[in-house]
């Protein structure tokens, strides 16, 4: 039995800067995961991953598990959570000031 599809976001790193970004529903790359498009259909996810193949803009695009939160998509795995917040040992990631801190 294939595993049931779970909601996803498309994420990548900017080619020039390396910043973590997410794909929005209106085809922008955003630094804020909450603005990302939450994809709840498997076929649509495959199409959006193809849309995200923009080799002059981003690198390493992939589908990451996410869930619907009060302010927009939120990560479900700690790895993706750290990508949204930056390192937990320092408060100076791309998202400085928004991270949960070392005890997260």
């Amino acid at each position, binding site marked *: 039995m294939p595993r049931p599809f779970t909601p996803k976001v498309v994420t990548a790193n900017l*080619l020039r800067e*390396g910043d973590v970004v997410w794909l929005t529903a209106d085809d922008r790359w955003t630094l804020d995961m909450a603005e990302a498009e939450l994809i709840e259909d498997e076929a649509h996810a495959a199409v959006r991953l193809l849309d995200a193949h923009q*080799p002059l803009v981003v*690198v390493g695009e992939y589908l990451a598990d996410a869930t619907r939160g009060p302010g927009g998509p939120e990560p479900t795995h700690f790895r993706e959570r750290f*990508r949204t917040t930056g*390192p*937990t*040992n320092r408060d100076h990631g791309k998202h400085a000031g928004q991270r949960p801190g*070392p005890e997260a």
Partner: protein
Amino acid sequence: MYQYDDFDTAFLAERNAQFRAQVERRLDGSLTEDEFKPLRLMNGVYLQLHAYMLRVAIPYGTLSSDQMRALAHLARTYDKGYGHFTTRQNIQFNWPKLVDIPDMLDHLGTVGLHAIQTSGNTIRNVTADHFAGAAADEIADPRPVAELLRQWSTDHPEFQFLPRKFKIAVTGSPNDRAVTKAHDIGLRMTLRDGRPGFEVMVGGGLGRTPMIGKTIREFLPVADLLPYCEAIVSVYNRLGRRDNKYKARIKITVHETGLEEFSRLVEARFAELRPLFGGADQDVLARIEGMFADPAFRDGGAAPSGPPAFRSWVDTNTVAHKRADHAIVTVSLKAHGATPGDASADQMDLLADLADAHAYGELRISHEQNVILPHVPQDALPAVYDALRDAGLGTANVGLASDIIACPGMDYCALATARSIPVAQGLATRLDELKLEHEVGALKIKISGCINACGHHHVGHIGILGLDRAGVENYQITLGGDGTETAAIGERTGPGFAYDQVVPAVERIILAYLALRAGPQETFLDAYRRLGMAPFKAALYQTEEADAA
């Protein structure tokens, strides 16, 4: 120290120009990411969790003050004001933009540093004893040989696409501070008939399948070193498995082939290669040795007295120099609660200034993620300590429980399965609260954030391995590892611990040691070897045996 000649300078400039053009072609679409990735990796550029990362080699851990200032400049100009010294005597910059990296490499080139072969399936940065050239117990300075190996292995046409990465470590001392037995080739200097040579060990390594290196030659004359190493790598290049990434390191090749047969093949290849080395390599070595002459040591005076904090720092952070009027100072990058191995740009500049003022312009980086001032006159120790203390670098904990090795883990690394830095921070903070680590004495805690074991957890007296268990960070503990000449792989205690339970777990082990040891002279490792796993395990898992102990 080694001084670049015109050939070296031209080689580096050409290589940097090539990489600059490769970056430009990637940005304009002439190169795909698949085409570009191996090129950037060959120049030390990774894409990590949050950003690009540039890994710069610090050959055999030796830096001049000018080189340290160049690293500070990169940290300040292109990063977020700090760099991370690694367990392989490299420094990693965690936040460079791809478009800036060619400029970073050009700046490094002005001081004879580069990032070549800090990634990829090549011979990586040759590492060495961080006290090389200064240690009282040293037969001879191993760095000239390390430099010879570096020159031989850099851009070696036969060894650019090995089955897997390849690491060489060298020590000139019988007391192994370079973890030579956990390297693909480990070289330990020995004497025969009054002449130095090397015990050659092969097939050591940590990672998924940890193995202690096996001695393939008890004594190898220095003149045979390059052809013999070339023979080893050549045989590995032919036999090493390319079908399975996890079985591709030479440790697996030696294990599967058997040391006897592997040795026979190496000796046969060596017999072919040795006549091809007509002595030019020894001429190069002689020229290199001339560059590693001792500095013009001044009279360093006698060991000074001072306030208790100073004396504690001297006791903990200095060791015997080969001259009685000098000391080797280890600067701890492990202030309690700080990120192990991180140094700010300002701290790097200060260390460079201190090296110029009090250590003949030399520094070393240890695989234990600390900085060494290798030649400090005894009468300069108070001034060095005062300056370090004022910069937050005066922590007196070298070799103690809070002098923790930790890989970047999931705070930075794309391969990590769990965090390691915050665990180290939490442990060190707790140890500082307990005020026990000086009583505990020598204790090496090493933490890796994945099975690749960059944090050397297998050879920690207490090793911690972070894993992802069903989407939750979980930490396995091993005991009894040892990275020295009595090397051993640690034994796993049992079930792992959640992120918020690992610090209390290690605290229980340490408290058990204090209760179990025969006396203050019995180190943690000695106590473990005498008592075995059982009493520590009982304390760790709080079973009845612990109550009875």
